[in-house]
């Protein structure tokens, strides 16, 4: 159990059977008054945020969270299948659970899957991934439109802006936190 005085930014607690992460935290105590622990939390399954003030005698369960290294195998319909690289156990997450992460998943990629009560709830990707450009308009020399980027599509279907010299079939590095182009990868 955690007590209110353990609360801090980044701590994960369980409320009404669901895991929450504290995203903002402030300790307050009016003169001669009671200690108040003001928090903003995010539900780690639904992503919903809420603010709540707790008092000294409030208690919180520790959520049963575990992170496991898994390999992305394939997607079928709405399901994204992963395999534990040590136990070979297979699980899947839905497209909704993965959110923007689906833009950067390619076969055999190693990711960290977060389990809550032995159910997969979230995936964290490597910060940088290398993806093949599958569609890019050729760069027209002498283009004076003034733009210094152009749109391309990568193997996952994700579209982003890149410098004009990137060609179809080349590999580029993308920052998965922002979804932005970093550099061209030479192999």
């Amino acid at each position, binding site marked *: 159990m955690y007590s209110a005085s353990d609360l801090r930014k980044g701590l994960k607690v369980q409320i009404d059977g669901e895991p929450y992460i504290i995203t903002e935290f402030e300790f307050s105590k*009016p003169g001669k008054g009671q200690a108040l622990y003001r928090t903003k939390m995010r539900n780690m399954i639904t992503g919903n945020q809420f603010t709540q003030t707790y008092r000294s005698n409030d208690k919180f369960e520790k959520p049963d969270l575990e992170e496991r290294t898994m390999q992305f195998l394939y997607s079928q319909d709405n399901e994204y299948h992963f395999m534990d690289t040590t136990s070979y156990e297979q699980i899947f997450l839905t497209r909704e659970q993965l959110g923007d992460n689906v833009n950067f998943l390619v076969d055999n990629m190693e990711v960290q899957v977060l389990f809550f009560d032995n159910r997969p709830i979230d995936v964290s990707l490597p910060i940088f991934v290398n993806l093949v450009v599958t569609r890019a308009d050729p760069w027209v020399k002498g283009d004076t439109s003034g733009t210094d980027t152009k749109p391309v599509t990568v193997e996952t279907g994700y579209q982003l802006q890149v410098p004009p010299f990137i060609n179809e079939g080349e590999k580029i590095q993308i920052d998965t936190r922002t979804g932005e182009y970093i550099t061209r990868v030479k192999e």
Partner: protein
Amino acid sequence: MATSVTLQRRSVLLQAVRSFFLSRRYLEVDTPVLLPLLIPESQIVPFCCEGRFLQTSPELCMKHLLARGCPRLFQLCHCFRRGESGRYHLPEFTMLEWYHAGWSYLELMAEVEELVRTLAGNPDDFPGLDRQGNLVREQRTVALHRPWSRMTVDAAFLEFAGIPAREALADGRFDEILVTEVEPNLGWEQPLFLYDYPVTLGSLARPKKDDPSLAERFELYICGIELGNGFSELVDPEEQRRRFEREIAMMTGRERQVVMPERFLASLAAMPETAGIALGFDRLLMLFSGAGTISEVVPLAAEEL
């Protein structure tokens, strides 16, 4: 960790506080910090140490001295409160506490104004002050010239939360509304005294003569931050005993043994009418230094050792 310039500022402000009180013929005292018993306060948790306590405030000791005939006392000392840790809280912090016999909270408010004005008199020493000696924080200027704003607790609750203070208290929401809806608005144009608290929130304060449901207690706010807590002291031992009994009743089930401070109650009978205040020295230095947290203005944090 504090840089040498922060240490310098801290030293300047400590000296300026001492000069202010010594020039007004206050006596500086340094009372014990390791105490066999504390004033029963249900909302404050002490550190226990081999059957004794580290002081949570110097109030008990200083009132003993007032009862012995010392009419004007001040003290700069460390206080210790378990579990208090945040932007404006540390479990060990420096308190400036002073008492003036013969005064009520009204005269004391005026002296607080003069103290802070005087301390801000050398603005070049402090990056949180502008050339005129006014406080600057979050791109806003807080004018320190007198008189400062004054607002009753009830008026503040009505204005900022739309609920009378009594009602908030009855609902058990007083502290929460104060912290989330009232305090953030206080003391941005000028410092502000919030005053006349419900009597149950001033365990050591004298009730108002014309309305005994209120205590002659005030808090000082600057930029939404609470800096000090003062009152006309309660000097009636019987009334004080009844209030301590209520506090002790709220503390049953705690791990520590709470005893009635009998000698303190006995000495209270000899104490003259007095006004007293505790002011957070680190918070004042934080404002003067333009710092975001009090950890930035203490000489060393426990974590650095």
